[in-house]
C-alpha cells in the first residue's frame, strides 16, 4: 500500500510528554482541516489517504498492555475502514478469552468514529458476526486475523451543529497511572457519562465515588495485581510488556508510565521475566500502587455487560474511550485496570459489591494527578501506521 503518511504528522517541537523518536511520532498527528476529508463519503479526494488518516487516530487508542492488536483494512471503494484483531497480539496468560483485546479494538473504533465526526463526517459502525472461540490467543491454527467491525463514512448533514474537536483530545489522552487528588466530578459531567453509556443497550456504568467502595476496589485491584505478579505465566507476560525506560520498542509500557525511575523499571522488567530476583516488597509495592490509585480517584468507573460476549466487549471499549475523552475535555485523566476484570476472584467480588449479575468488563479510575508532574509522564509508544495497515 502506497500511502504517504509523512504528511499526517507535524514536525517541530513536541509537547513535553511526547519523547523524541519514531515510537512517539503517532502523537504528533496533524489536525487536518475539514476540507481535506469532507469528500470521503462522496468519492472525492484520495479516499485511501483519507481512510489511513482516520486509522492513524485509531492507532492512538489505548490497548491492553499497549499490545496494539488492531489492524486496519482500507476500503476506499466503500468509504469504509475495517478493523481487525490480530490474535498474535492477544495476551495468552492474562487475556485467554481475548476479552481485553476486543475491548481495546472497541477503543480503536471509538477513536475512528470520533475522529471522523470531528471533520464533519458521519460514521456508522457495523459489527461483524463474532464467534467467541476465534478471538482467543493465536496458537498457530487457523487465521490469526479476525475482522471485528467496519466503519462506514458518509457526509454529515451540513445543517448539523459544528462538530466537537475530538482529535485534539485523542492526541493528549494517555493512561495516567498516578495518585489523584479526589476532586469530585461535576454533576453535569456524570450525567454526560451516564448518557454516553445508556446509548448502548446491554451496558451499564457504575460510577463509584464513595470512600468505602473505592477502598474495596483498591484492595481488590491490589489482590488482582498481586495474583498476576505471583503467577509465573502472568508475571512473565507482564515482564515482556513492562519495559525499561530506555527500551526502543514501539509497543509495550515503559516503567516511567508508572512513575518508575530508570533502574527500578529495569528491575521490574527483568524481575517479572524471571531474569533477576525481585524482593517480595517490590512486587507488593507495585500492587499497592494500584490500590492507592483507586482510593485517590475522583471516581472509579465500572462498565458492566449484560452478556459476556464479543459484541458487548467491543461496545464497552467504544464507550470507555468516549468517556475517557469526555473526561479529558473536562480536565480529568483516566487509567484502566484490567486485572480486576480478568482475575476471577475480584471480578466476582465486584459483582457482589455492585449488586449486579452483569459482568464487569471495563474498570477505570479517573481524577486529576495530585502531583502535576505525574500528569506529564510520557505517552506510550506506538508502531508506525504502515505496520498496522493490511493489504
Amino acid at each position, binding site marked *: 500500500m502506497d500511502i504517504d503518511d509523512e504528511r499526517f504528522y507535524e514536525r517541530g517541537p513536541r509537547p513535553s510528554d511526547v519523547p523524541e523518536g519514531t515510537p512517539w511520532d503517532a502523537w504528533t498527528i496533524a489536525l487536518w482541516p475539514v476540507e481535506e476529508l469532507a469528500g470521503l463519503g462522496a468519492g472525492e479526494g484520495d479516499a485511501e489517504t483519507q481512510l489511513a488518516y482516520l486509522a492513524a487516530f485509531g492507532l492512538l487508542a489505548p490497548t491492553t498492555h499497549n499490545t496494539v492488536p488492531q489492524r486496519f483494512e482500507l476500503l476506499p471503494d466503500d468509504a469504509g475502514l475495517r478493523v481487525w484483531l490480530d490474535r498474535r497480539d492477544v495476551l495468552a496468560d492474562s487475556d485467554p478469552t481475548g476479552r481485553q483485546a476486543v475491548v481495546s479494538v472497541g477503543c480503536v473504533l471509538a477513536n475512528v468514529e470520533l475522529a471522523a465526526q470531528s471533520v464533519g463526517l458521519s460514521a456508522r459502525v457495523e459489527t461483524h458476526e463474532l464467534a467467541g472461540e476465534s478471538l482467543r490467543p493465536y496458537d498457530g491454527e487457523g487465521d490469526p486475523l479476525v475482522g471485528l467491525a467496519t466503519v462506514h463514512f458518509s457526509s454529515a448533514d451540513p445543517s448539523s451543529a459544528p462538530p466537537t474537536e475530538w482529535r485534539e483530545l485523542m492526541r493528549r489522552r494517555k493512561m495516567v497511572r498516578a495518585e489523584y487528588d*479526589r476532586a469530585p466530578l461535576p454533576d453535569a459531567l456524570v450525567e454526560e457519562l451516564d448518557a454516553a453509556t445508556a446509548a448502548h443497550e446491554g451496558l451499564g456504568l457504575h460510577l463509584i465515588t464513595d470512600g*468505602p467502595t473505592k*477502598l474495596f476496589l483498591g484492595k481488590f485491584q491490589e489482590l488482582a495485581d498481586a495474583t498476576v505478579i505471583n503467577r509465573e505465566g502472568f508475571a512473565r507476560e507482564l515482564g515482556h510488556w513492562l519495559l525499561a525506560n530506555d527500551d526502543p520498542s514501539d509497543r509495550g509500557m515503559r516503567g516511567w508510565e508508572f512513575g*518508575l525511575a530508570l533502574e527500578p523499571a529495569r528491575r521490574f522488567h527483568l524481575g517479572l521475566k524471571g531474569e533477576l530476583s525481585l524482593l*517480595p516488597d517490590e*512486587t507488593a509495592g507495585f500492587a499497592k500502587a494500584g490500590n492507592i490509585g483507586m482510593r485517590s480517584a475522583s471516581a472509579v468507573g465500572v462498565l458492566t455487560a449484560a452478556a459476556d460476549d464479543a459484541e458487548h466487549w467491543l461496545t464497552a471499549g467504544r464507550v470507555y474511550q468516549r468517556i475517557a475523552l469526555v473526561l479529558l475535555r473536562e480536565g480529568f485523566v483516566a487509567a484502566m485496570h484490567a486485572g480486576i476484570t480478568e482475575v476471577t476472584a475480584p471480578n466476582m*467480588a465486584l459483582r*457482589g459489591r455492585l449488586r449486579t449479575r452483569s459482568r464487569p468488563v471495563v474498570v477505570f479510575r479517573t481524577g486529576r494527578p495530585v502531583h502535576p508532574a505525574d500528569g506529564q509522564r510520557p505517552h506510550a509508544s506506538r508502531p508506525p501506521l504502515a505496520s498496522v495497515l493490511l493489504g
Partner: protein
Amino acid sequence: MEERDASTTWGVPGAGLRPLLLDAASAHASNVVQYEDDGTVQLRHEAVGERRIPLRRQVPCIRATFDDLNKALSRLANSPRLADGRSLRELYDEEAARYDELCVNAASEGRFEPDYGTYVFDPREEVLYLVAPKMWHRLALVTSNSKLLVDPAGALSWAQIRERLEGAVVGFAGVSVGGNILEGWLREARPQQVKVADPDWVELTNFNRGERMSMRHLAQSRAARFDPRNPYDVPRVSKAAYIAHESLLVDPYTEFFVYEQGITRDCIDRFLGGEGDEPKIDVLVEEMDDLDLKVYVREQARRHGVDVLMLSDFGHRAHLMWNPFRADPQAILGHAVGDEELLAKLAATKTGDRSKLPEFIEALCGEASFGGPFKDWLEGVGEQPTGSLPQSGATAMASGAIGGKELALHVLGHPPPPGNRIIYNLLDRSAKA
C-alpha cells in the same frame, strides 16, 4: 443494602456495629423495652425495628458490677475524697443500697428489672446488656489502676487525676498498631471521648497484632452478600468500626468518633480541631501506612498546635517519637532533618527504588531506627515470606502498652523523653533515649 454496609453505618446507633444505649427507666416507661412473662424482651426502636430477645441473649451486668466494686473499693480512711467531701466508698455504699431497694421493689411487683441503669443493645450479636449507670460502670473499669499515675509534682488528688484523664481527647489515625495504643490508653485513662480513623478493613494477617481481633471481624455474615452463593462476595469489616465496637463492649459510655474513611484532606480539620459537638483533640496518635498522609497530618497537626505521638514497631524495636507541636509550633516534621529534606525523601520513595523507603523512614523517625532481623528484611537478606513490612505481634502489643502509658503521662503534665524519642529494643532487652 443496609446489611451490606453494616460496617459503614457508624452514624446510626443500633445499626452495623454501633451499640444502641437506652436509659432503662425511659425504655420501660415507653415500652421500648418490654418483658414478656417468660423473660423474653420485646425491643422496639426505630433504629433496630422490632426484635424479640430471648433469655440467652440478655446479659444483666449491674449486680456483678456492684459486687465487684464492693470487693475492690477501699473502706479505709484513705479512700479518695470527692468534691462534696464524701469518700468514694461512702458514695458507693449509698448507691448500692439504693439499687438493692429498687431491686426489691421491682421483684415485689413481678418486674424483671428496676428502672435503673442502661440497656446496651449490640446489633452485631443481637445481645441486650443491662449495665450500671455511667459513673459506676466506669469506676469499676479504673478501680484497679488505683493511683499509680500521678502528676509530676504529685499534687493532684485521685479525683483530679481522673478528671484530667477522662477529659483528654486523643485521636488515633490508623488502628492496627494504633489499636494497641488505643487499648493501652483506654485501660490507663478510661477517657470520655476518643476518635479513631482508619480507611482499611480487618484482615486475618492483622490478627497477630490487632487488639481484640477475632473471626467475628474477618468478614460480615452471609446475609450481607448480594448473592449468598457467591463465595467471592465477602463484605469486610471496617477497622475503625470494629475497634470502636469492641471498646464499647467494655465501656459503652465512651463517645467514639469513628472515621471509617480514614483521615483525608476533607476531614483532617474536623478530626484535629473538632466541629459542632465533636471536640478538638489534645494529642494525635499517628499510626498510618500511607507515607504521604504521615507527613500531611503532621503538617496539619503543627498548624493546629496538636502534639503527635507515634509508636513504630520496627521488628523487635518499639520506637517512640513525639512531635511537640503544641509547645513548639516551628518544630520539624521529622527527626533531625529539615522539612524540605523530608519532603524530598518522600518524593524519592515513589520512583520504585526500594532503597529510598528506609531513607525516608530514618528522616521521619531518626537514625538507628532499624536493626537486627528488621534491617535484614530491609536489605533483602534471607527468606522473606511477606511483601509488607514485617511486624511482630508482641512488639505491637508492647508498643500499645508503651504508648498508652506515654499518653497518660503526657496528659498529666510529664515532659516528653529527651530528644522526643526512645527506642525500646525487645530483642536486646534495652531502652535508649
